[in-house]
């Protein structure tokens, strides 16, 4: 350990006495540290830039390009006219209805399993929620066709009771049919997202409220309600974005009968390009990014707010 004195004396750095580090160690490691802090995440950022940033910027860029390569707003203007405007409206409608309905039903289900005394029930619903939240596309469409399609099991069963689902000209491939199918993944997603918030309601609050003279209704009005409102709203937003972005299920069920923005983009990608509106698809994509961006941004903000209060 008598190397220490000489290394300290000889170094022009702030080497701490002790240890057998040579006097150049500190200097070298400072460079290494600076590179180190950013170096380690370099691959990550490069990768994200290449396979995510690049395609995204390309879409936004092309949304404002006309075919000769100049800047233009015509794509964006076209994207909110006629059939495309209708598609935005329909997509927003579908997302609003499926997210609010899914949120209410999902909240009820989540509340029920949160207070249930049977851990088995909770575990089953959790696993099922994980599976069903990720179900979509053709499998989901076929399942519903088999259930309430023209020759579906439930359709036939209801006929036995004298109920004809198709009497009024309704089919599974209408707006309401689509909502019904979308609920299959919206409700589980709601359960997954809202369950931690409901679990965050402490029994102490209920007991304190009661001992202070509050009824169950008053507890919900003054305590539980206000506490659950931010996470509930956030969850609605998440469901909204989820529904708005959905492509596979819509594509499997409607095949063009209901105009939705993801489907419009899909058909433009598949080559149904209208000659002088080649970059229209990118404008539509840009529109989707803006809408979902706003929704997810609000969701993130609400998440932060509710985390403060419901922290366990």
């Amino acid at each position, binding site marked *: 350990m008598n190397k220490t004195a000489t290394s300290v004396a000889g170094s022009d750095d702030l080497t701490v006495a002790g240890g057998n580090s040579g006097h150049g160690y500190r200097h070298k490691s400072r460079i290494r540290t600076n590179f180190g802090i950013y170096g380690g995440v370099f691959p990550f950022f490069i990768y994200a830039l290449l396979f995510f940033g690049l395609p995204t910027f390309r879409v936004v860029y092309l949304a404002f390009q006309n075919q000769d390569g100049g800047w233009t707003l015509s794509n964006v203007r076209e994207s909110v006219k006629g059939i495309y405007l209708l598609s935005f409206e329909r997509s927003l409608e579908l997302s609003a209805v499926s997210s609010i309905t899914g949120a209410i039903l999902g909240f009820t289900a989540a509340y029920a399993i949160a207070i249930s005394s049977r851990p088995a029930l909770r575990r089953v619903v959790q696993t099922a929620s994980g599976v069903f939240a990720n179900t979509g596309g053709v499998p989901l469409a076929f*399942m519903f066709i088999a259930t309430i399609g023209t020759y579906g099991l439930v359709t036939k069963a209801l006929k036995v009771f004298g109920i004809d689902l198709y009497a009024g000209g309704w089919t599974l491939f209408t707006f309401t049919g689509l909502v019904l199918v979308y609920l299959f993944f919206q409700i589980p997603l709601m359960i997954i997202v809202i369950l*931690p918030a409901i679990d965050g309601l402490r029994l102490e609050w209920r007991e304190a409220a009661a001992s202070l003279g509050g009824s169950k209704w008053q507890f919900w009005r003054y305590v539980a309600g206000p506490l659950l409102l931010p996470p509930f709203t956030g969850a609605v937003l998440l469901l909204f974005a989820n529904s708005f972005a959905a492509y596979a299920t819509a594509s499997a069920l409607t095949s063009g009968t209901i105009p939705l923005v993801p489907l419009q983009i899909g058909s433009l990608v598949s080559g149904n390009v209208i000659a002088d509106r080649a970059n229209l698809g990118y404008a539509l994509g840009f529109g989707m990014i803006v809408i979902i961006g706003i929704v997810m941004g609000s969701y993130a903000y609400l998440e932060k707010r509710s985390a403060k209060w419901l922290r366990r």
Partner: protein
Amino acid sequence: MATAITAPPKKAPKSGRSMVLVPKIGPGLGFGLFVVGFYFLMPVISAFEFSIRDINDTYSLGVYGRITSAPDFGTVMWLTARLAITTVLITILIMVPTVTFVHLKAKKLRRLVEFVSLLPLVIPPVVLVLGVLASMPTSVKGSPMLLAFEYVMLAMPYTFRALDSGLGAVDVGTLVDAARGLGAPWRMVFFRIIGPNIQSAILGSIFLTVALVLGEYTMASLMLWETFPTWIATIGQSEASLAVALSIFSLGFAWILLLALSAAERRQKGKKPSGGEA
């Protein structure tokens, strides 16, 4: 719609706790729960019934035997498997060092990395595929592995969160400092200290990623590759029963993956140091 999040397990209730104000499932809530359960169960049952129903209205499980002999079964499964493996490998290669690094050495960058990993939630796959087709060179687009590279991005919000909470649950920084202070070389630190603690998190990420790859339809279909999900759609146009059988199969497999995921999560929770009174 590839939202592979799972709900967290609940803490065990305190024993002997008072009963008076604990909410119970009343008849109204119970009925509602039953209706919801019915809504989810019926499609699965109906689909299963449809798949095993013959033209003559007799039942047989034969359709499930025909899965392996379906046209292109081998090619499709092989492609899907390669995609899954590639996606998993790239994810681990990129995410594990990055998240570890961010927890150990660059704590200030954690928020930024988290933000970037959440960005895929804002760009729908249908828009992403639009961008990919417009920006990638033709040679790259000629390989199906491009899908895998994109799937890594789609899975990123979930894989980051899984690894991040895995590393966060055990204070890796302190453990590493302690090990290094005792003189352990980096390799040992990685394999004996960091590794085992994030094993479950890595496993969880793998399951999430595989589930995503097996269910992703949008990008595969618009880039004209025949993976398992797009293949089901193709089959659906000619043989409905087979397509439904494949759908049931895909559902069942997802269920197994998620069970494996919760088992891995439970193992991870078990490693959490228990605070509070002894």
